[in-house]
């Protein structure tokens, strides 16, 4: 058992047994060695289920929305990206800070579970693509930091290369590329449901009236869906990369989100989401001197 896991269990045990919290959100080990799904712990004896390893991908902050009416305080483990989700949810008035005990876990970067499929436990596994461009591996909000912060890596991730490649294409080539991607979409909405920026009570895609999105799965509707989602999360996306990870069809969704984030930074100045509670999302305010060369 690694030291991280030991520290997690220690703190969780103390929090639960002292009654400081009544629920702990963490990760556990299931039947597969390369998956560390979420676990909800409310009894001290279950603390032994908690683990931390390189497959703790799930952002537990998303569950806090289900638990707004939970009586008592909730302890939640957050990596850097997850902590930004906490800030975003606080900003979106979806959770209450005083009901949380946030335990920061500086994240060394995770491994790609898809690459582990079929391999023996302990085998060499590729790093997860979503962690490659991470600028905030260390939690930005927490009540306790469980271990020392980690240095920020600045390697260029494949997603950046993809964006650069797309940028260099002609519009028709780009369109053809995205056509190929979006034709695969099966509309399972895993991207949306895992996304902490998608925190509407009822998604506009699920509404019958207005009929924003048709039920039919065709290219045009899929394009509408993904472009609308890109606009909805614009300036609110914390770039955790979960949408892309969970997409069963491997659609490179983060290329869109990263591109939009970069555009926004270029247009309106750096405004990475979920870092500063006071900073409003870039599409929620404006500056008199915003660029408008298009006029």
């Amino acid at each position, binding site marked *: 058992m690694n030291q991280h896991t030991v520290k997690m269990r220690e703190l969780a045990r103390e929090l639960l047994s002292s009654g400081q919290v009544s629920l702990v959100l963490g990760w556990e080990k*299931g*039947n*597969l060695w390369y*998956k*560390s*799904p*979420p*676990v*909800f712990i409310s009894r001290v004896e279950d603390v032994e289920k908690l683990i931390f390893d390189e497959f703790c991908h*799930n952002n537990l902050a*998303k*569950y806090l929305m*289900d638990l707004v009416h939970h009586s008592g305080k909730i302890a939640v483990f957050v990596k850097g990206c997850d902590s930004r989700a906490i800030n975003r949810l606080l900003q979106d008035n979806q959770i209450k800070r005083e009901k949380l005990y946030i335990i920061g876990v500086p994240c060394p970067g995770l491994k790609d579970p898809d690459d582990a*499929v*079929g391999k023996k436990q302990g085998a060499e596994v590729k790093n997860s693509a979503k962690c490659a461009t991470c600028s905030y591996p260390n939690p930005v909000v927490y009540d306790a930091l469980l271990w020392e912060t980690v240095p920020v890596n600045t390697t260029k991730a494949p997603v950046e290369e993809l964006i650069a490649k797309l940028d260099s294409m002609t519009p028709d080539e780009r369109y053809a590329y995205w056509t190929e991607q979006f034709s*695969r979409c*099966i*509309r*399972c*909405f*895993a991207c*949306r*449901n*895992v996304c902490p920026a998608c925190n509407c009570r*009822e998604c506009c895609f*699920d509404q*019958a009236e207005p009929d924003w999105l*048709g*039920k*039919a*799965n*065709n290219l045009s509707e899929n394009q509408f869906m993904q472009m609308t989602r890109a606009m909805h999360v614009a300036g609110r996306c914390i770039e955790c990369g*979960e949408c892309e*990870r*969970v997409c*069963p*069809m*491997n*659609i490179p969704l983060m290329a869109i989100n990263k591109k939009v984030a970069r555009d926004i930074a270029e247009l309106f100045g750096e405004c990475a989401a979920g870092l500063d509670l006071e900073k409003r999302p870039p599409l929620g305010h404006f500056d008199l001197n915003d660029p408008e060369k298009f006029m």
Partner: protein
Amino acid sequence: MKTIVKSRLAELLQTMAQDFRVLVPVKSETVSQFVPWQEGLTVNLEGNTVLPPKDIFFPQTEKMYKFKVKGSSVDIEEFAEDVQKQVIFGIRSCDMQSIDCLDKVFLTKGYEDTFYKTKRDKTLLVALACTKPQDTCFCESLGLNPLEASGADIQVYDLGDALGFVAKTPEGEELLAKYASLFTEVNAVPQKVEGFNLKAEVAGIPEKLAKMFDHPIWDEVSQKCLGCGACAYLCPTCHCFDISGNVKADQGYKFRCWDCCMFSEYTRMAGGHNPRPSKKERVRNRFMHKLYYFQERYGQLLCTGCGRCIAKCPVGMDITAIIEKIKEAEV
């Protein structure tokens, strides 16, 4: 046994493609699925496809009929569908079982779904035996034989360098005879199947679930579900659909498309009421349907042990673990 070396498989498929629409498992950079054979494709003989073959008979979106309003009457016109005879090559035991499930839903109990039937009737199924189960496979636990798919017209065995073909139905015989020149007759023994990583004990589960509708287990099981449709849309047996329309002024068409009981709007009614208001009820429904309701109606489980949902669930929900929980639950 009729065999063909793997390097000549393409030749066989190419020849077949002159007479049939041939669907084969292909793995691309992004996804693996059944696609119509084309020269140059590489058939994936390793492991199963990410997307099940169910959309061959039951497409995700399927147009049903056109209509046009004229005064107080409506003109209805069906879409003329030109269905070719087709062969699905390389289908695994689990997916063969799922086709059996779908057949039961769409073709039995007094109603035959014509959209499904037209395509199903014109299909020959060439099953491929599994020797290496994937990490998430557990078909054996459900009583399936990974080496012998029931219902297949032809069973294919992996013999290492070659593939061995055995006809299981007259239609299968006919097909093999048609391309006999491509095969060599060899005495061969199919490989044995390796051990399974996952197991599930389903004996008694349906009976137990009958008493577990209000059991607290559902609160726990549903807790981490995100309510997405990845499991259902990758499931070879899930077959729920919705009917919707595309209307422009006084004309349009109706279509049906896959739906998923995990979605919040799945059972939402026009007035806004939803009998399955939270994910607890939805998750319960999913597993009840898989492991109890279907058994009750059709005498078999609606799970084939293909493991796709386990592999792709964003939050690592694992049906074998849930079966285990049900087994252990106190009723």
